Each structure stands twice: as C-alpha cells, then as structure tokens.
C-alpha cells in the first residue's frame, strides 16, 4: 500500500512542475507589457520604470524569474499583484475559504441527494419515479452551470431574505451566502452520480450473490444496503470524484454569477486586468488541487479494491 501511494506521488510531482512551466511560459508569451499594467498605462519617468523592473524582477533572466516564482510558491510568497500592489498570497488566503466551502458544500449535496436517488431508481426500476428522475438527470447534465445559477437567482429574487452578498463573519452567514450557489454548482454532479449509481446498482442487483442472499431469506432492505450497495459504490466514487474535480472550473463560473468573493472571481478579474501574478498563482493552485483530488481518488481506489495496487 505504502509503495503504491509513493509511486503515484512520484508520478504527479513531475507533472506539477511541467504544468507550472507551461503556465509561466504562456503567461510570459503575452504581448502585453507588464510594466504598463503596473504603472496603469500612465507616462512614467525612466527612474520609475527602472524601479518597477527591479521590484518585480523583470531585470532578471526569465529562468531566474521562474525559479523565484517557484521558490515563492513553496514559501508562501506568490508575488505582488500588478494592479493592487499587494501580496497575492494575502489576497488568495482571504478568498480560499469561500471557494473551498463552495466545493465542499456542493460535493455534500451531490452525494447526499444523488446516491439515494440513484439507488431508489435502481430498486424501483422502470416505474414512474425512475423515469422522472432519469429524465431530470439528463436535462441537468446538459444544463450549463452558469445557466442554473442565473435561474436560481431569478427564483430566489422572489423569496425574501435570500441574500448572497454581504459579510462572512460567522458560520451561519457563511452557510447562508453559500448554500444556494452550492446547490446550483452541485446539479451536474447530482445528475451524473445519480445516473451511475442507478446503472451500477441495477447491475449488482442482478448478480448471483444477491440471488443467494434472497434465497437465504434476508430482508430486501438488508440486501440492498449491505450487499449490493457496497459493491455498487466503486464506480460511483470514480464519477463523484471526477465531478468534484470538474467543480473547480464550475466554481469559477458560479462565483462569477453570484458575485462571490472567491478565487474564481479573482482569477477572472486578474485575466481582465492582465494581472499576471494573480493569474499564474491561482491557475497553478487550481491545477494543483485538481491533481491532488485525482491522487486521492487513486489512493481511495487502492484501499477499496486491493487488485489495483498490484497492477
């Protein structure tokens, strides 16, 4: 087990560094001159330009600039924002919790709603309930997350007391602001996870061991929950975790629609203002999180299904 985990981690480290080089390289290929962004497009004296160049390390060769950025990433110094002239790490730290909360609450919704729905569909296969849930699932899968967000806002505007903007001083406020956006974000996960749990559960319910359990006279509740469900859950975990990974991008869109002060909205405003320290650091952080989720899934897999470890 330990060896397997080590092997997977060793595979991911080079990918992380190549990704960081690609992000850094593409950002540097931009035709926009950072100095003009920093000085706000105003005319500046030679001395001011030189000062900016030294402050942001533009006087150094590009390789050194990359190494400085990488060193900063591991020591918590993500550089200085061009536009706001303050430390990017501080800006990210203030917003990280909102994005994490958004993804965590959405995943919770996704699992808590979708798996029971899928199992229900499988048990009541080809009944009205099954058909309705299946059709809703197909529509939800094809519905872009920003559209669901807009529709949610439209619905919520008729309900008093539903506010998404404001402070995040305590936990109650945190949940009040994030619950509706999280629900919007979780729809596509709900749809896919429900569909996969249905298919997987139907397959398991047909299998021989379920037949044996029936012959033994076990209650159908026990068969469904203790026998079939345990085996049916493996493909569900794959899809659920892929969806949690996809939520990283979904969160960017949802934050943008609901105007939540998270990482995604900072990324988009960074792109709009050519604020590259923000763009490259958030981008690397999000890709890193995506890689980490994939790693955790692989490890979880190996725990559940020992055969994978020996491949």
């Amino acid at each position, binding site marked *: 087990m330990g060896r397997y985990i080590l092997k997977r981690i060793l595979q991911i480290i080079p*990918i992380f560094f190549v990704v960081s080089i690609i992000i850094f390289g593409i950002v540097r290929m931009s035709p926009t001159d950072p100095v003009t962004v920093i000085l706000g497009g105003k005319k500046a004296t030679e001395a001011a330009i030189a000062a900016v160049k030294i402050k942001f390390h533009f006087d150094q060769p590009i390789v050194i600039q990359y190494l400085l950025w990488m060193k900063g990433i591991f020591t918590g110094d993500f550089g200085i924002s061009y536009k706001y002239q303050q430390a990017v790490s501080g800006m990210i730290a203030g917003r990280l919790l909102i994005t994490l909360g958004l993804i965590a609450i959405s995943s919770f919704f996704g699992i808590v709603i979708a798996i029971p729905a899928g199992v229900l569909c499988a048990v009541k296969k080809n009944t009205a309930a099954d058909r309705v849930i299946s059709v809703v699932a197909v529509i939800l899968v094809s519905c872009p997350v920003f*559209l669901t967000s807009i529709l949610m806002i439209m619905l919520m505007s008729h309900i008093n007391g539903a506010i998404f903007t404001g402070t995040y001083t305590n936990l109650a406020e945190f949940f009040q602001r994030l619950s509706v956006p999280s629900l919007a974000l979780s729809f596509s996960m709900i749809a896919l996870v429900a569909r996969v749990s249905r298919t997987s559960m139907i397959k398991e319910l047909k299998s021989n061991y379920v037949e044996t359990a029936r012959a033994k006279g076990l209650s159908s509740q026990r068969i469904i929950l203790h026998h079939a469900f345990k085996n049916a859950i493996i493909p569900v975990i794959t899809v659920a975790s892929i969806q949690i990974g996809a939520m990283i991008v979904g969160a960017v869109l949802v934050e943008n629609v609901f105007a939540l002060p998270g990482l995604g909205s900072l990324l988009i405003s960074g*792109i709009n203002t050519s604020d590259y320290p923000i763009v490259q650091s958030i981008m690397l952080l999000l890709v890193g999180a995506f890689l980490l989720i994939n790693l955790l899934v692989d490890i979880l897999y190996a725990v559940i299904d020992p055969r994978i470890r020996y491949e």
Partner: protein
Amino acid sequence: MKMKQKNLGHFFTVSMVISLILLTVIILASVFAAYVAPYEQAAIDMSKTFQAPSAAHWLGTDNVGRDILSRLIYGARVTLLSALVVVVISVIIGVPLGLISGYYGGKVDNIIMRVEDVILAFPALLLAFLFVASFGKSITNAIVALGIVYVPMISRLTRSLTLTERNKAYVEAAQSIGFSDTRILFRHILPNCVSTIITQMTLDIGYAILDLAALSFLGMGVQPPISDWGAMLEEGRAFIQISPLLCLAPGISIIVTVVLLNMLSDNIQMYLDQSQRKLPSFKKLRKMAGGLIEQ
C-alpha cells in the same frame, strides 16, 4: 441486400429519428440564417424594447429592440460552427497521435502519453482561460485552446482502438504484402475505428458547445458585435427581472442542442455495440425467417 435493410431498421430508432430531425432543423436554420431569420440580427428598434412574444416577434425583443429569435438563429451559426471547429482541430491532431502511439507502442507511445498527461492535468476550461488571458480575448483563441484541450480524449480513444486492431489478421496480411506503415494506419486501421471516433465526436461537440458558451459568458469567447448563445445569456442576465426570455431563449437552446447530441451519440453507440442492440420484433423475425417459424 437483406442484411443492409435489417441494419437500417435498427439504426433508425424513435429517439434517433427525433434527434436527427431536430438537429437537422437547427443546423439548416443556422446555415440559411439570412433566409430563415425574420429580422437582421443587429436591426435595432428603440421604439420596441422588451416586447413580449407576439406574431411579429415570436420570442419578443431585447433591450435595444432586436428580435430575439433572429439573434438566436444567427447565434446558432457561431455556436455550432465554433464547436465543430474545436472538435475538428482535436480530431486532426488527436487521431494521428492515437494511431501512432497505439501502432508503434514503446518509446513513441510513452512520450505521447506523458505529454497528454500534462494536458489532462488541466481542467478543460482552465487551459482555455490561460490562453485567452495571455493571447487576448477572441473566439479564435478560445477555439484553439479548447481544440488542444480535447486532443487527449480523442487520442486515447483512437489509441485503445488501434491496440485491438493492430493484432488482427488483416493488419498482418497488409504488413506481409509490404504496405507502408502510413498506408496500413490510414487506409486499413483507421476505417475500422472511424465509427467509434464519430460517436465520440458527436459527444464532444456537445461538450464544446457548453465550454464555448461558458467562455463567451465570461466575455472571453466571441466579442461584440458578433454574439453566440453564451454571449446572449451574459447580455440577458442584466435584464432578467424585466424579461426572463432574454436568458431563457439562449439557455434552452443550449440545453436542447446538447441533449439532442447526447441522444444521437447514445443511439449510434448502441447501434455499434452489438451486445446492446435490441432484438428485432417477433413480426420482423418471422418475416426474416421467411415463414419458417410458422411451420
């Protein structure tokens, strides 16, 4: 001949026919937008803003009096064409890569797979964000970025198909005749993989529509005055309290098109995957057996 007729019977299932007809309608409407659309897409009429649906404007008008239906039809053109280009780019790069890495294996395969691992490390839209952030906001950049992001998907599929084809007798025969590898790959192996690749393409067009809409929605895709469904959603968002149709019309168009593409893809897959094919009805079976059953 009889064999062919039987296959056609399976191919045109009810949901297949529905999705094919509706998709054809959408595609034709977008291609012949100039003839189909009742108004010019940019025809502004400030005396008729936010009109409810009527005989003159089937879906009403927007904040500057443009006909929503006409904008939707012209928008379909941009949306569908961009999505198609994304998929074509990914196929042109991805299929040869998949063929080569599946056929030759070894070092070449390893290099291609590792490079694709890096692309797969990016969530699809993030890489597109990066491209647009650096090279400027334009639909071309968005399309190129998504095209590259989609390469690993199509390439891995082609690779796995090639791996199974590679060991078949006809490939061995072609090799022993002395055909060049290029000829074997493109004239012999590829035609056997093409149907599965097309299924994946239909699915990918759906994904591309969603991703492009997201980019346009964030203002990183099409730039004014051109607009697609994503951009229409973004514009309509500000007026959602006055006229929900401004958002609903492009939104529902996106959902319907993607659902239809998914249906089409599912059906083609079901047709290709023999184990999932439905048996012909008893009536048909009797016909095929030529009265044998009766005896």
